[in-house]
C-alpha cells in the first residue's frame, strides 16, 4: 500500500504536564517513523496552518483531553466545521479544517487523536497513565498513516 502524504500536528502547553501529550506523541512519531511522516509541534493551532495542511492527504491532530469521559484514548475522524471563539486566538482542529476548505478549497482527510490528561500542574513530565495511552496513540497514528498495521 502506498504511503499517504501525512502530517501529524501535536499541540498543547508543554509546561503543563499532560497538556503536553501532543508534543510527546510527535516526538515518538518522529523517532519511530523518521522522515516518512511530517510533524509539527505547537502550543496551539493558528490560521496560518491552513496553508500548511492544505497539501497533505492526511492530517492527524494529537492533543490532550481535559474533562470527563471514560475513554483514555479516542481516535475519531474530523469534519470541517467552524466554531468561532469569542476571544482567544485558539483554533480547534475542525475549525482549522473548515478554514483550509474555504480559503484553499482543499480538505485533507483528518483525524483527532486525543489522550485523556490527569495532571495539569506545572511541569514537563506526563502522568503514568497518560504516557501509557500516549504510546498506544502513537501506534494508532502509525496505522492511520499506513506505516504499520
Amino acid at each position, binding site marked *: 500500500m502506498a504511503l499517504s502524504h501525512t502530517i501529524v500536528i501535536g499541540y*498543547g*502547553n*508543554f*509546561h*503543563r504536564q499532560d*497538556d503536553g501529550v501532543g508534543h510527546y506523541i510527535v516526538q515518538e512519531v518522529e523517532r519511530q517513523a523518521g522522515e516518512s511522516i511530517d510533524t509539527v*509541534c*505547537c*502550543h*496551539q493551532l*493558528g*490560521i*496560518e496552518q*491552513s*496553508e500548511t495542511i492544505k497539501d497533505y492527504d492526511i492530517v492527524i491532530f494529537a*492533543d490532550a*483531553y*481535559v*474533562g470527563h469521559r471514560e475513554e483514555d484514548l479516542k481516535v475519531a475522524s474530523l469534519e470541517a466545521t*467552524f*466554531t*468561532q*471563539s*469569542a*476571544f*482567544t*486566538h*485558539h483554533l*480547534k482542529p475542525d475549525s482549522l479544517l*473548515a*478554514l483550509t476548505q*474555504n*480559503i*484553499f478549497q482543499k480538505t485533507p482527510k483528518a483525524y483527532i487523536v*486525543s489522550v485523556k490528561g490527569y495532571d*495539569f500542574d*506545572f511541569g514537563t513530565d506526563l502522568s503514568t497513565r497518560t504516557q501509557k495511552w500516549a504510546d498506544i496513540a502513537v501506534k494508532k497514528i502509525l496505522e492511520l498513516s499506513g506505516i504499520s498495521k
Partner: protein
Amino acid sequence: MGKKIAIEPVTRIEGHARVTIHVDDDGKVENAYLHIDQFRGFEKFSEGRMYYEMPQITPRICGICPVSHHLGSAKACDAVSGIEPPRTASLLRELMHMGQTIQSHAMHFFHLAGPDLLFSFDADPKIRNVIGIVQVNPTLATKAVMLRKFGQEIIKTLGGKKIHPVFAVAGGVNNVLTEEERDTILKDMDEHIAFIQQGIEIAKRWVRDNMETVETFAVFPTGYMGLVKEDGALELYEGKIRLIGPEGEPWELFDPSDYLEYIGEHVEDWSYLKFPFYKKLGYPDGVYRVGPLGRLNVADKISTPLANEEFKNFKAINEGKPVEGSLWYHYARLIETLYAMERVKELLDDPDILSNDIRAYGGELQSEGVGCVEAPRGTLLHHYKVDEGGKLLKVNLIIATGHNNWAMSKSVDDVAKQYVDGNNLTEGMLNRVEVAIRAYDPCLSCSTHALGKMPIILEMYDKDGNLLDQITRDSKE
C-alpha cells in the same frame, strides 16, 4: 426578582475569566465586572531555576506571544549577567519582535475583530466569523493568512520555530541572519504593506459608518503608558517608559528598571489578576491603558513614513489629546502593524544585521535585572532577583494584559449598562460585551499562565446575589 444571565464557554480549566452582570428588579444593569480567576503560578514555579533558563521557560506561558516573553526575559538576563549585547544582536532581536507584532496584530484583526467590523455586532453568529469573511472576500482572507505567515516565518527563520523559538540568550542571540534569508523576508514586502493599508481603509470606513457607536462605546478617561524613543517616537523594543494623564499631561518618563518606583499593583477580591496603577496618584485615579491605543497616545510621532502619515490622522481624532474610545484600539493596532512592517525593511537594510558579532560575554553577575518590551498587547516587564550563583530568588512578571485589567472591566461595565437589558436579552447585546473585551486583544492565557485557551463565563445576578442564567459559547472537546 432580577435576572441572572451567564455566558460560559465550556472550558479546559474552569473559570479562567468571568463576566458578571448584576441587574435590578427592572432588568437594568447596575454593575458588571470582568473577573480573572485563574491562578498565576509561573513566578513561583521559576524560583530556584537558573536565571538564564527563563528565555526558554517563560515563552511557555503563552502560545500567542511567546516571542515577547522570550525577548523580555532575555533583556532581563542581559541585565542580571551585566552584559550589553552587540548591536547586531539587538537588531536581530528587534527583527524577531517585529515579526511577532505583525503576526499577532494581523491575527487579531482578521480572526477576532474583523468579523464584527465587516458584519456588524448584531449579525448572525453563523456568518459573523472568519469563515464569513472568507466567503465574502476570499482574497482578503488569503492575504490575512499570508501576512500572519510572513510574521511567523521571520520568527522561524531566526529562532528555528514559530512558537517558543530558541534564539535570544543572555548577552545576545545564538543565530545569524544570512543574506539569502534576508532576501527571502524582503520579497513580497510591498504586497504586505499594501494589504495592511487596505486593512486600515476597512477600519477607517467602518469608523466613518459607525461614528456614533465609536464615540460612545466604552469611552472613558485613563492614563496611558508605553515605550518611546529618545525623540518621543513610538518604540516597541527599547527606550524609556512614558506615562501620561488623561489630558495628555506628562506624568513620568523613566527607565524600565525603575518601574517599581512608579507602578503599583492593587488587589480586588473578585479577581486573581491584579490592577496596576501609577503610584503617585494611587488606585484607581492612577489607572492607565497600554497596547496600541496606549502607545499611540503617549508617542509624539512614528519614525517610519507611511505609519507616521496614519499616525497624524490618529492624533487628529481628538485634536492632539489622547484618544479615549476603546474601539479605536483596532485602528491603532493596524497603524502599528504598518510601522512594524516598515521597521522590518529598515532593519533588513541595515548592513550590521548580517554581521557575525551576535553575542557578548564576560559581564559581572548582578543581584537583579529588569527586561521590558512592548508586546503586541502592551508593556511587558520581566524582573528577576538572583542569588550569588544565579539561582532565581524572586520573579515578577507584569503582563501586558494585566495593565489593562481595570480598563477591560470598566469597558464591560459601561457596555453592559448601555446595551444589556436583562428582560430582553439578545445575542447582539452579549456580543457587544465581548466586543468591549476583544478591543483590548487580551491574552488571559498569558496573564494567568493557563493551558492555552481563554475560557470565559458571563453570569447575571439579581440584586440579592442569586445566579439566574448562564450561556455557553464554546463546546467541550
